[in-house]
């Protein structure tokens, strides 16, 4: 009996793992395949090439992908930098505003008739609903194709997450700790910085990562609101199309490179992930 359940458990895990890993390994394999193998079903490239990666760094050059097939490509470095700026700044803004909002909602009575639930409104409507109005407004105030425009939009759209994640953590921190600090002679603001902030550090990091990933892969608004200067990676990815059709190899290679920054971030903050994702245990 236990043997059966053990086998079932392993099988379930294996299926789950495969479901996670196959798309990634397939992308890796695709990124090393030459044009002729892009649509082939075999896993290991028969004639491995680095051309797909080289394409990503060519500066506006017509390159020959295959006999008779050429493509005009743009380098991925500017979009990568755009993405890191836009997503990085918007994440920081969302987390900071989220922290203060969550703190206020947790420690004082939340304002207004809707309270904090009002902030969920932005997540209740399909994002596509907002595309046209935002486009019109941004055109009027000249925010199209600007870093600032995307930053503000991303921060506004994701601040809800940091509010709700952080509120859960702050609620768990007894007020007594801050009150004790105040009685020792700190102002309420400094008590928050000295006592509460260090205790929710992990939560800040985790909500930051969550928001970062969400914005990092955002496509719809980036597509509509950027044209040249502020193009982000997900949009840039779609430009690898040539006379020979979609450049699957280059897209795969671009995807692989794009997944490196989140990987590095995840590695650096892994210490916080455990406390953060288990939602608390701040009482140690």
């Amino acid at each position: 009996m236990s043997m059966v359940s053990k086998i079932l458990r392993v099988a379930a895990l294996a299926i789950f793992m495969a479901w996670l890993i196959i798309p990634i390994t397939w992308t890796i394999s695709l990124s090393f395949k030459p044009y002729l193998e892009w649509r082939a079903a075999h896993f290991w490239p028969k004639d491995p090439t680095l051309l797909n990666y080289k394409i990503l760094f060519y500066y506006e050059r017509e390159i020959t992908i295959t006999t008779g097939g050429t493509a005009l490509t743009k380098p991925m470095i500017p979009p990568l930098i755009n993405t890191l700026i836009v997503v990085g700044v918007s994440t920081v803004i969302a987390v900071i505003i989220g922290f203060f909002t969550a703190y206020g909602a947790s420690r004082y009575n939340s304002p207004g008739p809707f309270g904090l639930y009002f902030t969920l409104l932005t997540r209740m409507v399909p994002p596509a609903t907002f595309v046209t109005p935002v486009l019109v407004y941004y055109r009027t105030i000249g925010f199209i194709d600007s870093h600032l425009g995307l930053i503000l939009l991303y921060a506004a759209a994701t601040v809800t997450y940091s509010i709700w994640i952080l509120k859960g953590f702050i609620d768990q921190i007894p007020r007594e700790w801050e009150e004790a600090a105040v009685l020792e002679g700190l102002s309420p603001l400094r008590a928050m910085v000295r006592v509460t902030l260090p205790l929710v550090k992990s939560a800040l990091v985790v909500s930051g990562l969550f928001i970062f990933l969400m914005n990092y892969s955002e496509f719809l608004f980036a597509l509509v609101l950027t044209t040249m200067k502020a193009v982000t990676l997900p949009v840039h990815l779609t430009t690898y199309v040539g006379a020979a059709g979609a450049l699957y190899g280059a897209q795969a290679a671009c995807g692989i490179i794009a997944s490196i920054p989140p990987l590095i971030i995840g590695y650096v903050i892994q210490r916080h992930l455990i406390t953060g994702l288990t939602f608390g245990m701040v009482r140690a």
Partner: protein
Amino acid sequence: MTEVSLRVENLKKTFGKTIAVDDITFEVRRGELFSLLGPSGCGKTTTLRCIAGLEKPDKGRVIIGGRDVTDLPPQKRNVGLVFQEYAVFPHMTVYENIAFGLRIKNLPKDEIHRRVLRMAELLNLEEHLNIRAGKLTLALMQRVALARSIVVEPEVLLLDEPLTLVDAKIKETMRRELRRYQKELGITILHVTHDQLEAMMISDRIGVMCQGKILQIGTPIEIYDKPNSIFVARFIGSPTMNLIEGRLEQWDGKLFLDLDSVRILLYGIPSEKLGGYIGRDVVLGIRPEDIEISTQPMEGSFSGKVSLIESSGNKLEVIVELDSVTLNVLSPLRMDLKVGQLVYLKMRPMKAHIFDKTTEKNIMLKEE
């Protein structure tokens, strides 16, 4: 003349429609340990928070060390506060916890170091100094919290049920230690508790609170021997004081409590204080240890049946049934009693309290 460290005047605090603290006034003298004692929800913690400045009173003044602090924020009041729980900062070491308040005051480093070490030595915390406070046992945490609050030398130290969550055995030791530190360091403490035994054991004076009001203030002995109301009488002392309703009668110059079936003779009660109460219904209060119990009839005794015997080794708690009432009797003797046995009871002279049935006040304490 004794100096007053803390004075609370006509303090009132309401939350919506509930009156938490109802116009209370009391003083804590310098170097004194004063306990506010009352059941949970009686407003004692709210009083404490108003004194600390964590709540804003609706009315009244708080004077600390001769300075009116009613309108000052908590950080400017020079009070320390130890909570029931969550008293230490879990992400800091014990050393950092104790040094916290000193660092805020920007004292020189070596001065901080000296004072932290002295405090740690005093409270036996030296070996824990580098441990994260969140990893300590509750008892140690409370000790660290105490150290952190004492080290900054506040005018008054407020303790909000600091020992409630600690194990019974450790509680006993900590109670004694707390009393010792308080005397050695000459700290003024306002202590809040619902544990009457704790309050009786460590306090210089006690204020008994009920429903937002202070009913009685006095030394533990005063409160025990002369409770001014039924509430105080019942709240202080364990086992609880016996309270019997009956009619007060006078015969032959002797006072009786008439219970229809039994008449209880009351010794040594000055009848002039009871003038208006003869022939009226009153409540008699008598502590279990103030009833003599015997298997033989005594002069002026009345009889009852033993219904329960509880022995705690050094004393015997006997529950005796009279026709309409049950009496709790504490006997220091190891008597050989059986359930169902007939026993004779007698009140010790001068020990009975008589309360007005409607006002619930102790009649015998009426202006001496």
